């Protein structure tokens, strides 16, 4: 149900690791909960982020939320296409809807993230709490 090659955070971000680079987005579960996303506030390229700190702002028809950095590091690239087309997050959360690429400061932080199976169990648990 969730892509096997990604790592997942409790705040519903996914991470795709390629060497020192971590591409970050939000999960299909998260975008479904938020509903239609209508605006994205991206970080500056070059900005330093701490793990768990806000990375980007999301406006949806239902609410306003944030994308949190699942790992610490430097933002080396942001998905500018989201500024004109925020719907990419809804339509393709693991592909064209990626949010930013972080050059990781401490790749060992990845050990604290979940696998696809663990995240699926985590989401089921959250849902049962209502």
């Amino acid at each position, binding site marked *: 149900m969730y892509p096997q090659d990604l790592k997942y955070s409790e705040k519903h971000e996914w991470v795709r690791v390629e060497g020192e680079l971590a591409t970050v987005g939000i999960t299909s579960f998260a975008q479904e909960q938020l509903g*239609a996303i*209508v*605006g994205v506030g991206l970080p500056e390229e070059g900005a330093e982020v701490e793990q768990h700190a806000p990375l980007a702002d999301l*406006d949806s*028809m*239902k*609410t*306003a939320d944030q994308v949190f950095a699942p790992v610490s590091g430097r933002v080396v690239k942001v998905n500018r296409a989201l500024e004109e087309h*925020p*719907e990419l997050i809804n339509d393709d959360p693991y592909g064209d809807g990626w949010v930013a690429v972080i050059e990781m400061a401490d790749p060992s932080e990845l050990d604290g993230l979940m696998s696809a199976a663990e995240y699926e169990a985590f989401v089921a648990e959250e849902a049962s709490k*209502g």
Partner: protein
Amino acid sequence: MTMPLIFERSEAGRKAYSLPECDVPRKDVAELLPDWAVRKSAAALPEVSEVDLVRHYTKLSQRNHGVDVGFYPLGSCTMKYNPKVNEDAAALPGFTSLHPYQPEELVQGALELMYELGRYLCEIGGMDEATLQPAAGAHGELTGLMIIKAYHESRGDGAKRTKVIVPDSAHGTNPASAAFCGYKVVEVKSDARGGVDLDSLRAAMSDEVAALMLTNPNTLGLFDENIVEIAKIVHDAGGLLYYDGANMNAIMGIARPGDMGFDVLHFNLHKTFSTPHGGGGPGSGPVAVKKALAPFLPVPVVEKKDGKFVLDYDRPHSIGKVKAFYGNFNVMVKAYAYIRALGAKGLREASENAVLNANYLMRKLAPYYHLPYDRYCKHEFVLSAAYQLAAGVHTADIAKMLLDYGFHAPTVYFPLIVKEAIMVEPTETESKDTLDAFVSAMIEIAQLAEKDPEALHSAPHKMVVGRLDDVTAARRPVLRWRPREQANAK
């Protein structure tokens, strides 16, 4: 049924104005203004006759929903009926013809009204001193936080106290105001009963916290019975308590934030004290404080000295002015008239009826809609469309369907801690007949959700327009009219 825009009604040469003969010497505008300030072609303003202009805007106004048209149970907004006599008071020429630069001795009546209103608000809130300057609720929040910041700074504590705690059920303006004031926002969870989770609060509390911002009753319409303990936890760590007065309509004459342990509070005169609101104001968000914070209030403060009312600017620790002149004066007049008309007993009755109406609606609707926090509510309560969700019916569908019954929809998808939230605030000014009509509509909608969910998905059916594509409107907003050829070229 769409209607043409005023621009689309335009015919060259028509006009809705008639000016008298010019009785001063004519001058060419190019002689009076620098070249860059003179436009080179005429502005593309619509040209319509007077009667067409009047009809256009009258028709638009008829498409509005307001409290004077029908029930408006918009949770957290206190859309109560505002007696027209308060408009009469605010329209008295002695008030409307004032000039803010008039000397104090010529505006004693206005100053007395402001002074007395400040005293009344302090009495209602259990506070010591007040400012009437802030223009609305969020402005009051910012003013209150600036006062808190100035207080900590005066004690040499300002640099250390960088955080403001806000519960996860808070109004969105609370974290926004705290961030705007330069604070880091820390969120604390709600407990199973809907109040502040005390363990989360204790864990978040430290000598880095400047204040806790709280609404009580909170956005679930529930009174936090732990408020005295909450105040102790915050005060013991040197923090202050900020009261968001958005829900003041629930407690007037019954409980006072000052007695609960709050140090600062803002009122929404335009919610609680009889000024129509929504659509941009003007509002008024007075801030009242405990004595220790009074030196930091904005200047000027209206004072009474030797039987005269004066504007006191001599407050060296003041955070300064937060608005031009003295605030939105005409809103103050309405609040003053309202408070004087009701008196202490009447204000208490208003809150009692607001709470009674909310509990009546909640009990009538609970068999048909999920009630996530099942306990006595105050002036509002939160339902959820959880039962209807099984048939694929969302809160938005229910809200749209209500329009066909002539009701404004409740607040939806807020507070965020309730999924598919439906937040209902009937206020004290509605009769039992109106409440029963609303209950009937909600029951019919619940039945429809089981029998014919499609009818709800396509609602509303009786409005001048059907279900709007609000997602595209948000993603691709068309913010201004353009002549057809320009719009096409784009």
